[in-house]
């Protein structure tokens, strides 16, 4: 009887002890909330640094940083087409996740391009300026617009809004200019 009582008491003490520990742990964690938030920000930053910064929104988020935030909350890592397999691999390594193929429902990985406005066709509607996520287009209402080549990320967002379709996405010059190694005909 006494031994049973002792057992019950010990168990009860254990239960209470653990309950107290757990409560305490919760409170400890709660006190660390700001620290946790900081850790998340750092994580977001490191993920963001791996993303290509095209700011194209193909991942379904309005820019690379929002997608980085989403990834740090557990979003899939394979939604960025401009980054392609390479970026997925890097993020997977950072987060210790398995490497997965690109989710092509968000788009295909294409070579880098830049936008170019056919300036004589531009009517100056300013729609492309509003679409550009990095302010890489200059122009005034009813005046010609042009792309600042050094700033353009090649995100493709300005192409659709243009009412006269005068924006082309051109491949990077280096890709086209010298793609021709020749072979000696051996006579």
């Amino acid at each position, binding site marked *: 009887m006494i031994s049973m009582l002792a057992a019950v008491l010990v168990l009860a003490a254990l239960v209470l002890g653990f309950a107290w520990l757990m409560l305490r742990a919760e409170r400890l964690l709660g006190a660390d909330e700001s620290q946790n938030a900081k850790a998340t920000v750092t994580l977001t930053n490191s993920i963001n640094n791996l993303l290509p910064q095209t700011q194209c929104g193909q991942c379904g988020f309005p820019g690379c940083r929002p997608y980085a935030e989403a990834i740090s909350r557990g979003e899939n890592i394979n939604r960025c087409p401009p980054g392609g397999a390479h970026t997925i691999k890097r993020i997977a390594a950072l987060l210790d996740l398995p490497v997965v193929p690109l989710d092509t429902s968000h788009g295909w990985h294409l070579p880098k391009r830049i936008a170019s406005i056919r300036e004589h066709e531009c009517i100056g509607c300013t729609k492309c300026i509003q679409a550009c996520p990095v302010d890489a287009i200059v122009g005034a209402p009813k005046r010609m617009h042009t792309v600042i080549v050094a700033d353009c990320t090649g995100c493709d967002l300005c192409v659709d809004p243009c009412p006269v379709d005068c924006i082309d996405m051109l491949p990077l010059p280096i890709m086209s200019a*010298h793609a021709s190694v020749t072979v000696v005909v051996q006579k």
Partner: protein
Amino acid sequence: MTRLRRSFFITKYFKPWLLRLTGRAGWATTLHALPGGIAPASHKTLSLQQKITRMPSGELGLPAQLILPLRQHLGPDSVPVVSVGDYVYKNQLIAAANGEKGVSLHAPSSGYISSINYALPPINEAHDPERSWQQALNRHHNAIVIDTDGKHAVRPGLLGANVDWRVRSPDELRQAVFDAGICGMGGAGFPTAIKLGASAIKTLIINGAECEPYITADEALMREHAAEVIEGALIIQRICGAQSCVIGIEADKYQAIDAIQGVINQIMSELQPANAGQAGLSLTLIPPIYPSGGEKQLIRIMTGIEVASGKRPVDVGVLCHSVATARAVYKAVSAGEPLTSRITTLTGHALKTAVNVEVMIGTPVSHLLDFAGVQHSQLQRLLVGGPLMGYEASDLDTPVLKTSNCLLAGSELDIAPAVTQSNPHRDCIRCDFCATVCPVKLQPQTLYFAARHQHHDASVENGLFDCIECGACAVVCPSHIPLVNYYREEKAVIRTDNDTAKQAYWQSLFEKHQQRLSVNAIDQQQRKLDKLQHKLEAIAVGEPLTKTPVPPVVAPTTSKSTEQIKQEIEAAVARTRAKKAELQKKNDATQDADK
């Protein structure tokens, strides 16, 4: 099929035989074998029938315009120091070097400046390993254009002091080289003065192994100006303090060898017998195998040292300059003459006369083609540079650069048609011919698969950036895969992906953009608030609510009492305030997160 058999024959049998032969003849007693390499038909006799034609002379007059790009070298663009309309004399400085790593640019002939920002299609880009994406995006290179007046007038007193270089200090000599705007004339155009600034150089190698088919500019130079080349080599040796200076020439350039050996013998006989051993000037014949003239390849053949991946020859105490650079150094130091002309090979079966010409830098290609009698019906592809490493001229206005050693007007006898969508290449059959000939001991087929599938990590791991783009693998590939194209593109893509500076810049642009949007939204709410406040004040003093007359069709506002209106406005104020506060909070939060 014949092609396949031939390349097989050449790589498997001809090369070892050649090596054995050269070894037995006693040419190559201390040489080290180059891994891989090919021996393609050289076609060099084509342009060696005549002596070098100098510009300006009889048939080869000055062009009406000289187009001088501000970047013909590796490094920052030169800065123009002339303006449109200025008259410039020959050899006058027209663009100054941009800092220590720059190269200056001089007028090759006299005339008036007609433009200092002439836009030129991209040139000389593929060989520039330090190009960032930012530079690639500058689609046009700016150039200075001189309208020549045909007088070829040199400003009096512009020539340097005629002091013997042997008594001038190495630093002084190096400054002379810097002032003359010399960059490596064999390929990439690395500024010569920077290279000469390296310390602890033991061996100086002068590269006379012009191994690429068709090109004979260096060979013609050595035949006709051997003394100047050797003198230049000695000047370079004095500047860098190397103990020995070795000139490497391919063993099948008989006349060039004779000329160079003659000059060396003469210099040696002039020296006191006691000093003869110290001059350290010698000639080494190397087997005629492509690409023995690559910098690292030549060093490996001549010294046995393999320059490690990612290292430069100066790290192992070896300096390598081409014979053309040596001659430019000679001219700069002995006569104070800047680099304004170079020897270029005009060749190919689409020309009536293939010949070497000494032309002004900046001469448009079309001028030279006219001189050589180009048959446009025959012309299939026009290459600047040789058939293996050259690039396609973008148009006929392309000027001759400090680095252009050859202009190949190829008919179908010379060059295979480009691989295009309508003329595709076959699939890789994993025959490993390419791996046999690669001088860097890479596995070109593995690189090819990595590049095609954009496995960038695999590309880098397999040594993509050690590939010298020699094209040997593409020549022997029985599937006609333009392998080097894939490598060049892959290199460009990887450089782009790793351009963290660019990405950080875009990130900052995006953040600024977001910031602007959120500030705009807050402002909008504030404007709304101001308007409402105005209305409330108006009600308080009993003014009419709007100064503009109310259109009669609009329902009269009198259906509501003033009190009602006042309440509605106050509710709106509260809503707007709340919205603004919310936006402000969001804005502050993102700013905090960014910090």
